């Protein structure tokens, strides 16, 4: 299953690649915001705040890329569409759990960062243009840096037994 459909990487331009990266960050931003809302609704406020912070971080990354795109290409229309991008850096919906802890949330973020790194690594051999290759390498390396940050945060938090199942018979009424 490819997480991006309808894109021929061999024909991708630098502008389209930037747009792709922007949309990947946008999808991650939206997903973390959704997770924050879900967990706020389901009485998990600490993790809701954590995911809200993640959403703001992804938005910052998106804005940085958007600035580069505007500087290089102005507001010309993008050939890449949001509907073609499936969970590249966004954690999958199934990763969220009511009453999950911050450690579990960090592990979710880590898995998402690894996924994004794999995506750029796998795309690299298909990219021919040197500028594009440099961009994808930069994006891949950023994902590696993000993983290091998450791993450092995980190391600061001791493992606790997962007690989320204790609440499994008491879901919030719909």
């Amino acid at each position, binding site marked *: 299953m490819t997480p991006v459909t309808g894109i021929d990487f061999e024909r991708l331009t630098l502008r389209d690649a930037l747009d792709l990266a922007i949309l990947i960050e946008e999808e991650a931003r939206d997903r973390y915001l959704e997770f924050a809302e879900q967990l706020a609704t389901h009485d998990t406020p600490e993790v809701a705040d954590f995911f809200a912070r993640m959403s703001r971080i992804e938005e910052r990354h998106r804005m940085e890329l958007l600035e580069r795109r505007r500087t290089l290409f102005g507001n010309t229309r993008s050939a890449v569409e949001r509907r073609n991008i499936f969970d590249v850096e966004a954690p999958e*919906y199934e990763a969220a759990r*009511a009453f999950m802890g911050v450690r579990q949330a960090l592990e979710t973020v880590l898995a998402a960062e690894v996924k994004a790194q794999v995506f750029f690594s796998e795309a690299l051999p298909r990219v021919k243009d040197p500028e594009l290759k440099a961009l994808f390498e930069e994006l891949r390396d950023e994902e590696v840096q993000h993983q290091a940050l998450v791993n450092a945060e995980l190391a600061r938090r001791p493992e606790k037994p997962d007690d989320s199942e204790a609440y499994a018979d008491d879901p919030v009424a*719909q």
Partner: protein
Amino acid sequence: MKDLLSPNDYKSPLKPIWCPGCGDYGVLQALYRALSAIGRPPHEIAFISGIGCSSRIPGYTTAYGFNTVHGRALPIAQGVKLANPDLLVIVAGGDGDGFSIGGGHVPHAIRRNVDLTYIVMDNQVYGLTKGQLSPTSPQGLKTVTSPLGSIEQPINPLLTVLASGAGFVAQATPADMPGMTALIEEAIRYPGFSFVNIQSPCITFGEEDQQLKAHKSRMKTLASLGHDPANQLAALDLARAYGTELYTGVFYRNATPPPTYDAQIRQRKAELQRGEPRPRSRVLDGYLRAGGGPTS
């Protein structure tokens, strides 16, 4: 300049309150994307649902929506489509809503061939009411209403709709988001009654082997099996594996779709507007000419 509709254009400000991890989140996202690919603006779309977790979907879109009564989504959707044939009508609901209380409506909606897309989020349990047996619950499933395990045979939704003559029948799982999105889009584009059974697990009351992680290892695409979606008999044969195998893709697509009910209604209206006499008028005129009618 913005002229293309993005998936977020179909997303309403109302926040879903499904349990975190629920399969329905993926279905909703796939619907936004499929609608964006089709490109019809929200005001040309109507979502009709019954009652249940998944039936909350109309509220989560910017399209018209009607969260109706339990099991009655299909009759109301047919009415909506006939009243305004230009609307793109999508029916959404769960397996309980569609194949238990609403089960009697399914074959009739299919035989009429009203141009609807029926998306069933099949989680094999009544999740909203805290985990009772549903019509698609597997035999042996222990729930609050079957503490020793279900002794009932589950309904097979795929066989039910195929046997009723549906022109488009598919199955998907949120474990394959691109595949599910493509199937929903194809179902919506099919001219006539189309059905997509989505194995959308209940994270709270569903079994471990029904969760998306298990789907990823179990699922097999029908394309990988070399299935020809035009072959109705092969589709029926493959559909028998519901509950044991997780096949995804198009089971059956009628290669020559018959005219839809709504198209036939339009045609009949056009005939009447051309001034051809209505049979009933002819009968009444004859009766009145013969001296019938009220006496004073």
